[in-house]
């Protein structure tokens, strides 16, 4: 990506800080975020890695307009997100959407998948009844819930965790946003389902050129979906750079600590030598 001037769909965070005032007299104010800058262009995927309390969720709240920074600026193209009035939030969200962490909590248990997905389509795209229904089917198709007819009328509790998270992602995609903030989108899923959801996110940002801010404490998934990595610790960026490079040659002690805390059973790198065969693959006669 050339270092040209930010396009209209570029998200820019400049020296953003967030200080929470003390709740009681005598207590020190809490600095949740300190001097964080980042740029997210269409099709970029930036990872935000850190332990809980590192400030990564605070930054997500600032970027999605749920909260305002106490210093610095956040802008989306020409739009100043940090100065957005309450009523401007809705228009802003047409462009910047969020994927929630817990697919078990993010879907209203009483609404069908079709209803949940039809709402953003109706609200932002203002399509007619039939066009909305078509768009919902298209969304289900995009996130791999096919055939759409089989999922449209399902209630959340009739879906698995992975399927629910796909619905949450489809909901975020419904209004054709330019930026998606994904807050730990696979941490609540079984490991067997993570690869599928990560592959979906990867595909979306390439095919639809969506900028993605990927927030996680899981270095493996960050490696799989992001190009650039910011390591946050105590509200500050302690390390940043291309994802692979940061993970292979961490310079900050905290990044090393994060890497060391990671249990990694890796059949290929740990115990396998060159002589062994790849894991058994499917024979031709699978049912």
């Amino acid at each position: 990506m050339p270092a040209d001037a930010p396009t209209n769909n570029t998200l820019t965070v400049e020296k953003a800080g967030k200080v929470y005032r003390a709740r009681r007299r005598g207590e020190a104010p809490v600095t949740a975020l300190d001097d964080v800058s980042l740029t997210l262009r269409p099709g970029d995927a930036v990872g935000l890695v850190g332990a809980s309390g590192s400030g990564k969720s605070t930054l997500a709240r600032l970027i999605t307009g749920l909260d305002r920074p106490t210093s610095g600026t956040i802008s989306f193209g020409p739009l100043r997100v940090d100065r957005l009035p309450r009523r401007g939030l809705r228009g802003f969200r047409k462009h910047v959407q969020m994927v929630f962490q817990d697919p078990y909590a993010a879907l209203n248990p009483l609404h069908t998948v079709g209803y949940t997905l039809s709402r953003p389509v109706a609200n932002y795209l203002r399509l007619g009844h039939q066009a909305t229904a078509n768009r919902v089917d298209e969304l289900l198709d995009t996130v791999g819930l096919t055939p759409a007819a089989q999922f449209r009328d399902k209630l959340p509790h009739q879906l698995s965790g992975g399927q629910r998270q796909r619905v949450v992602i489809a909901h975020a995609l419904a209004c054709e946003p330019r930026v998606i903030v994904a807050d730990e989108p696979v941490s609540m899923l079984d490991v067997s389902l993570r690869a599928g959801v990560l592959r979906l996110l990867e595909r979306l940002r390439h095919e639809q050129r969506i900028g993605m801010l990927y927030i996680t404490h899981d270095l493996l998934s960050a490696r799989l979906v992001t190009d650039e990595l910011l390591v946050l610790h105590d509200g500050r960026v302690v390390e940043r750079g291309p994802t692979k490079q940061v993970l292979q040659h961490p310079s900050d002690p905290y990044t090393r600590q994060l890497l060391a805390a990671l249990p990694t059973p890796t059949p290929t790198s740990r115990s396998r030598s060159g002589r062994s065969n790849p894991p058994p693959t499917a024979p031709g006669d699978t049912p």
Partner: protein
Amino acid sequence: MTRANPQRPIPPEPILRAKGLNVVYEPARGARIWPVRDVSLELAEGEFAGLVGESGCGKSTLGYALTRMLRPPAKLESGSIWFGGTDITALEGEELRRHRRGGFALVLQSGMNALNPVRTVEGHFADVFRAHRRAGPHATLAQELLDRVHLPAATLRRYPHELSGGMRQRVAIAVALALGPRLVVFDEPTTALDVIVQGAVMDTIRELQRDAGFTALLISHDLGLVLEATDRVLVMYAGRIVEDRPSAGLTGDPGAGGARHPYTRALLRCYGDPRADEVHIEGIPGSPPDLSQPPGGCPYVPRCPLAEPVCGQSDPDLTRRGNGATACHVAAREAEPAKDHDAG
């Protein structure tokens, strides 16, 4: 006591022996489900075993069943549990309590949130000591226990809300160890914790187990965590144990102590090293079966790339293969070549 396996040189005495456990879950409305189906297992004295599986595979229910903590609507339908030479399957009330005392304990993921918010840490220890009528200088004992989980003695006077998540989980572990259990079942003890804290708590658990010598069963959804902490891995799928093998070498070739069940092998492929030059992980297509309708054949068939007609016809038994056991028709045939000297 019968020996677990006559072939092994010095078989350690099993401290826990479960045979043919079936747990049924009967909600007031709706279908009955079978979260644990015909599970038999033995845990040797001083062993650190891990129980892994996807959510809903029955691993927590099995942990509850083994420690006699099942509560309605879940109920042990059949099978027997022997603990240290006593059949605890049907013990009730005071008798069961007597066996719990210095017997077995359960540490839960929510253990850290199960602390009473209006009681100090000291109060929690006092409750346990009183409930089990353990004599002695309680405060000193409690301090020793806290020391063992690396918490300062001052923690005794603190209330749960004054402690971080990691500290609360350490307190929960210390309380569980208060009566000197011989078997501790840890149910996702670090899942609610931060990555780095999780590592530290796991280190403490491992250290405690080594020093105190109790038998431990770590229940977790995270195969990576289990492989790092334990000596032996039990993989559960759809209510059954499908693989039972030493942790060391599980990632290797089937002939060299590696996993043989296609499910375990698929689980291993869900992990990767983020530092590697090329990282690629795979998922497992589909989802686990509905436990209200026990399938006629192997429950893994719909997701299995190796499935053959025979797999749909009967559920394979957990049988000895190499240095462990696997419940798979295909693996049973495939991995039989000459290298298996130790198989019976």
